[in-house]
Structures are given as structure tokens and as C-alpha cells.
């Protein structure tokens, strides 16, 4: 028996039949998940897609890679399982033992050896993957589709090993002897570990494998992602060379993450965030921070979970759930049945613990895949998390080049100094901050109130409120983000007092509907030459004030104040996709409004 209860499923339960056919038996790892049949379906989808005969890597070589990764991770359950599978495929005991003891002795062709080493490095040192690793495979004559398949295969191996540790299934077959000395010998893996200090801009940071365009209109699974996420993350876009694998992954995600019958969606996103953070995976951290914001979690809370969930406002039991997941996801050698029992004594059900282990496994699958393909971020990760990665000497450097990070740090330190002084009552420091951020406050007020005169009026109240509450600023978000929230509150209070109250929180009208641009007349070539600078400014200001408040705020902060999309999302407490949608609508409305002044038939006064 495994750590958790098991129930009998009907003989004809589809996934079991599939394993029976592919392997000749159903591994105990699957029986250990029978409390939640949908997660077995998820794993079966992944396995059958990766194992499919149509793939670029031969079946035997795939199983050989799975075995080597299991041995490298000291996963005795998976080693016994894969050894059996290989022997059923006709591999001799001697060959299997060679693989287990030292794959250099297994007489592999050079290209196969290179591929195996690539997979081992990805499994063990994911953050140090780089484009040179991919180039080395290409030099062996491997096609991009095969490289993508190898990355997904490795991710699957990591998924299984994480699960086997978390669920503790009984061995299917007798144990194998592992040679401990073989583990982590540097020559196995240290092909291209980039040295710290290397100039980042000079390195090709990915994506390593080209990805042809796939539209959500023709590729069904993308339509589902579009609906569940509001956009197609680069994570999925980067794998379009193999729609079959992509489809299986999306089905797995659908079965593991979306149902809310066991753990809630928020709990699962927190697990993904905390374990990705422990794996120093900036891409996934940024992704899950954003998804959590979309689920209604304040951005500071998500950022805090990324840095250290113990300091967050989560309940004690949810923190214990994350402790469990982080240990399972990153420190397998310390994990034991005791960790399962601990969650049980805290009141978690066996189904919940099972789902937590599966989500952790899926997370490690995704972390591995992202690093193996060098998938580029959709969003910026929280700055505090990036600093932590940087300080911890993490192999994945922050996105900006070193010099820029340094400069930003210095500026933020200076500001932090002013804030601290203002908090201790030094008025000169407060005055400096008010001057520095006046423009941002004014524009925020104008956007919400829809009227510059009212905004000037509200400036004074806002600044007084900032001073009154400045002790409440704890430095968990950027100071400017906090200022915007005060300005918004002040503006809302004013609107509530006044007559024409235009709610910003009201669901954006027709956000689901596609915005249909009406104006199709071409614009002149150099529109900026048609009017004087001050006329142009008046036109733009009138156009912006004519926008509905929801769009006005986003366009104001992004295009006028020129903050990044990510910053706007943080300041307004929205997800990045929501900001993008509003920004595009706002810009298109503005375009309609401005069109009559810039069409080819118009004669500006400058002409």
C-alpha cells in the first residue's frame, strides 16, 4: 500500500486499459491515485502522448532515458519500474545493469549518448540550461521536433519521480541495485554550465526551438486556454511544433488544475507559485502571481508567497500545505510518510493530499519544460523575488542586464530612505516624495474623475491622506503602487459624494464581445505634422476624457504616464491579461475618436 488510501476502479477504466496495453501491466503508482480518477486520466494522457510510436525518439531510447533519470534521482520505485519495462521490450539484464551503473559502458551510439546527457542535465540542473545545450544536439543531427520531444520526456520523468516520492507506492518489481558513486559525476552533466558574470545580453536566452503560429480558431485546445487564462501563455505557444504533445498537456492541466472539488483553484495556484519559487523559476512565478491576481488575491500577497510564504497572510494550514509541496517539489531526499501524516493531523483529507502531490508533480513538469525550452516570460516576476534569486546566487539571472538592475536598486534605495524619513515625521522628505510623484497622482485622479479641474482639487486631499497613512506603507509593494491606491480611494470617495458616479469596478461592458472597429479610412502619413503641439495635446486630452472610465485609467497609466503593462496591472490590482484587454479597447476607441482629425481627406492647419 502507498501513503494514501486506494479504491477499486472498474476493470474497463480507460487509462488502466491503456497502461495494460502499453506496458503489459498497471504500475502501482497509478493505483496510488485511485482516490481521484481524473488525475490518473491526466497522467495517462501525458504518458501515451510521450510514448506514442509516431514520436521522433524510438520507444526503447525513451524508456532508456526514463530509466537513467530515475537512477540519477535515486528513485528506486521508478528504477524498478523502468527496468522491467525495458526487459519486457527485450533488453538484456546486462544492458540494463550497465545503464544503471554507468551509462558510458552501455555502448550507446554517440548521438544517443548526447541526447541522454542532455536529458540528465535538464532533470538535475534545469536552471543552467542554455542554447549551447540545444546547439550540441543539433550538431548531432537532431531535429527541433525531436529536441522538443526530449524536453517533454524529461519533464514527464520528473513528474513521475515527484509523484513516486510523494505517494510512496509499493514497488511493482524487485528492487535494483544502484551504484551511488555514479550520481552527479560532473563530466556527465557539466557540459555547458554558464559561468556567473557572463554578459547576459550576449547569450541566446531562448526560446530555443522555433514555434510555428497556431491560432485558437483552428487549434481547439488553444480556444480552451484562451477561455481559462484570457490569453495564450508563451509556455504553450513555444510547443506548437508538436500539437499532439501540447494537446495532452492541456488535457492534463484541465483535469488537474481546473476542478474545484478537492483543493480550490487558489490553493492550487499557491502551490504552483511556492514550488516554482523554490525552484527559482522566474517564468512560472510571474505566471502564477498573475493568475492569483486574476483570482482576486492582492498582488502583495502573491509577491510575498513567492519570496517566503511563511510571512504571508495565508492560514496556518495552507502554509503547511505549501511546506509539504515545497519539500516534495525540491527536497525529495527529506520527504517521508511523516509529511503526509502531518497534513492529515491538520485535517487535510487524503484526496486533498493526493491532489497536492499531483499539482506539485505537474509544477515540476512545467518548471522543467520551461527551462528546457528557454520559454520567454509573459510577465515580469515580482521584483522582491528577483532580488532573492539574485542574492541566492540562483543560476537564472534577473531579466535586465546587471547594470540596469543596479541603477534601479539605487534609485529604489534612495526612495526607501525618503519614505522612512517621512514615516518618522520628517516633513522635508515627505515634500520631496510629493513633488516626485505629483504627476502620477494627478494623472490617476484625472483618469478616474474624468476632469482635470476636479483632479487638481483632489490633489490636496490625496496628499494629506498619503501623509496621514504613510505609516501603513510597509514596503511590500512599490511606493508608487501604494500612492496610486491612495489616489484611487480619494477619487472614489469624491465620486460617491458627487452626483455622476461612474463605477470602475462594474463589469466592463461587453468585455467578452469582440470590439469591432468601424472606422476603416486610412490615416495620413505624418499625422503629427497636421497640428501644432498644443493642439495635438488638446485633441488627445479630449479623446482620453471621452473614454469610459475603465479604459481611461488604463490608457492614462500605460500610454500617458508610460508605465509598463505589468506595473499598471499591479497598481490597479488587475491581472495583466485584463489590463491588456482594456488597453487595446481603449486604444481602439481613441483611434475611432481621433480618426476624423487625421484621415487622408483632412487638411490640418499646418498644411
Amino acid at each position, binding site marked *: 500500500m502507498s501513503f494514501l488510501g486506494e479504491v477499486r476502479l472498474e476493470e474497463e477504466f480507460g487509462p488502466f486499459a491503456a497502461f495494460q496495453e502499453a506496458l503489459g501491466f498497471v504500475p502501482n503508482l497509478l493505483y496510488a491515485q485511485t482516490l481521484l480518477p481524473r488525475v490518473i486520466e491526466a497522467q495517462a494522457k501525458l504518458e501515451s502522448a510521450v510514448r506514442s510510436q509516431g514520436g521522433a525518439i524510438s520507444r526503447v531510447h525513451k524508456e532508456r532515458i526514463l530509466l537513467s533519470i530515475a537512477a540519477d534521482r535515486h528513485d528506486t520505485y521508478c528504477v524498478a519500474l523502468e527496468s522491467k519495462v525495458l526487459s519486457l521490450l527485450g533488453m538484456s539484464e546486462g544492458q540494463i545493469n550497465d545503464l544503471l551503473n554507468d551509462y558510458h559502458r552501455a555502448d550507446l551510439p554517440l548521438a544517443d549518448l548526447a541526447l541522454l546527457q542532455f536529458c540528465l542535465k535538464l532533470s538535475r540542473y534545469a536552471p543552467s540550461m542554455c542554447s549551447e545545450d540545444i546547439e550540441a544536439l543539433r550538431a548531432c543531427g537532431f531535429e527541433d521536433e525531436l529536441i522538443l520531444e526530449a524536453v517533454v520526456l524529461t519533464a514527464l520523468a520528473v513528474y513521475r519521480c515527484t509523484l513516486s516520492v510523494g505517494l510512496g507506492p509499493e514497488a511493482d518489481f524487485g528492487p535494483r541495485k544502484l551504484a551511488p558513486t555514479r550520481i552527479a559525476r560532473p563530466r556527465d552533466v557539466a557540459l555547458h554550465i554558464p559561468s556567473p558574470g557572463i554578459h547576459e545580453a550576449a547569450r541566446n536566452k531562448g*526560446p530555443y526551438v*522555433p*514555434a*510555428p*503560429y497556431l*491560432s*485558437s*480558431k483552428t487549434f481547439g485546445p488553444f480556444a480552451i486556454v*484562451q477561455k481559462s487564462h484570457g490569453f495564450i501563455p*508563451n509556455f504553450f*505557444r513555444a510547443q506548437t511544433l508538436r500539437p499532439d504533445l501540447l494537446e495532452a498537456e492541456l488535457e492534463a492541466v484541465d483535469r488537474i488544475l481546473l476542478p474545484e472539488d478537492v483543493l480550490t483553484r487558489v490553493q492550487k495556484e499557491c502551490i504552483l507559485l511556492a514550488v516554482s519559487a523554490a525552484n527559482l523559476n522566474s517564468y512560472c512565478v510571474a505566471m502564477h502571481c498573475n493568475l492569483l491576481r486574476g483570482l482576486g488575491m492582492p498582488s502583495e500577497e502573491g509577491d510575498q508567497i513567492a519570496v517566503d510564504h511563511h510571512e504571508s497572510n495565508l492560514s496556518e494550514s495552507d502554509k503547511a500545505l505549501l511546506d509539504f509541496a515545497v519539500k516534495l517539489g525540491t527536497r525529495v531526499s527529506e520527504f517521508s510518510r511523516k509529511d503526509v501524516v502531518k497534513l492529515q493531523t491538520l485535517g487535510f483529507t487524503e484526496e486533498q493530499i493526493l491532489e497536492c502531490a499531483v499539482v506539485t508533480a505537474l509544477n515540476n513538469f512545467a518548471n522543467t519544460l520551461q527551462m528546457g525550452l528557454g520559454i520567454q516570460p509573459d510577465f515580469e516576476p515580482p521584483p522582491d523575488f528577483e532580488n532573492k534569486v539574485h542574492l541566492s546566487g540562483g543560476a537564472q539571472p534577473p531579466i535586465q542586464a546587471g547594470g540596469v538592475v543596479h541603477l534601479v536598486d539605487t534609485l529604489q534605495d534612495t526612495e526607501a530612505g525618503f519614505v522612512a524619513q517621512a514615516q518618522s*515625521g520628517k*516633513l522635508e522628505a*515627505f*515634500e520631496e516624495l*510629493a*513633488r516626485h510623484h*505629483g*504627476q502620477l497622482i*494627478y*494623472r490617476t485622479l*484625472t483618469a478616474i474623475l474624468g476632469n*482635470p479641474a476636479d483632479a*487638481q482639487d483632489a*490633489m*490636496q486631499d490625496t*496628499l*494629506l491622506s498619503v*501623509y496621514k497613512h504613510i505609516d501603513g506603507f510597509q514596503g511590500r509593494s512599490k511606493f508608487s503602487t501604494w500612492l496610486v491606491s491612495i489616489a484611487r480611494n480619494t477619487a472614489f470617495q469624491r465620486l460617491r459624494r458627487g452626483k455622476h458616479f461612474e463605477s470602475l469596478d462594474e463589469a466592463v461592458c461587453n468585455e467578452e464581445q*469582440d470590439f469591432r*472597429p468601424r*472606422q*476603416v*479610412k*486610412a*490615416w495620413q502619413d505624418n*499625422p*503629427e505634422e497636421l497640428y501644432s503641439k498644443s493642439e*495635438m*495635446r488638446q485633441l*488627445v*486630452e479630449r479623446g*482620453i476624457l471621452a473614454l469610459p472610465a475603465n479604459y481611461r485609467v488604463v*490608457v*492614462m497609466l500605460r*500610454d*500617458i504616464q*508610460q508605465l509598463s*503593462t505589468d506595473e499598471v496591472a499591479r497598481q490597479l490590482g488587475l491581472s495583466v491579461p485584463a489590463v*491588456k*484587454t482594456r*488597453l*487595446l479597447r481603449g*486604444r*481602439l476607441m*481613441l*483611434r475611432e475618436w*481621433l*480618426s476624423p482629425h*487625421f484621415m487622408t481627406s483632412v487638411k490640418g492647419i499646418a498644411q
Partner: protein
Amino acid sequence: MISCEEFLAEFGDYLENQISPEVRQELELHVSQCRACHVLYDSSRKTVKLVTESSSFELPESVSEPIIDRVMARLRTGRS
């Protein structure tokens, strides 16, 4: 070639210049073939450029300084 609907689905990221080379290629091909989308793209790009370069809603010092002075005066008297 992709349809106008597919073009519009990527349009926001295209304007923000946040797309992969492969997607960009598809979109550029579409824009070169479809007049309506070409006009939409061209005028939207110009809109964003005009808006970002307009220095709209700049608060003149002649307005902001008296406001800050009034606030500081209130804070100083409030404290003493």
C-alpha cells in the same frame, strides 16, 4: 493566410510588440494582403505614437507648487 479574426486576436500584442518572430511573420503577411487590417494597424500604431508623445495631462508647476505649499503649510501647523 490567417483570417481577420485571427489577426485581431493577436492585434493587442502586435501593437505592444510582444510576439514571437513566427507570429509576427503571419501578421505581417496578413497586413500586407488585407486592406482593412492594414488601415487598422497603421492608424492604431499612429494613435499610440501620438498619445504617448502628446505629453497630455502634464501638471504645470504653476498649479502643482501652490497645492504642495498649501499641503505643507497645513501639515506644519497641524504639528505645532
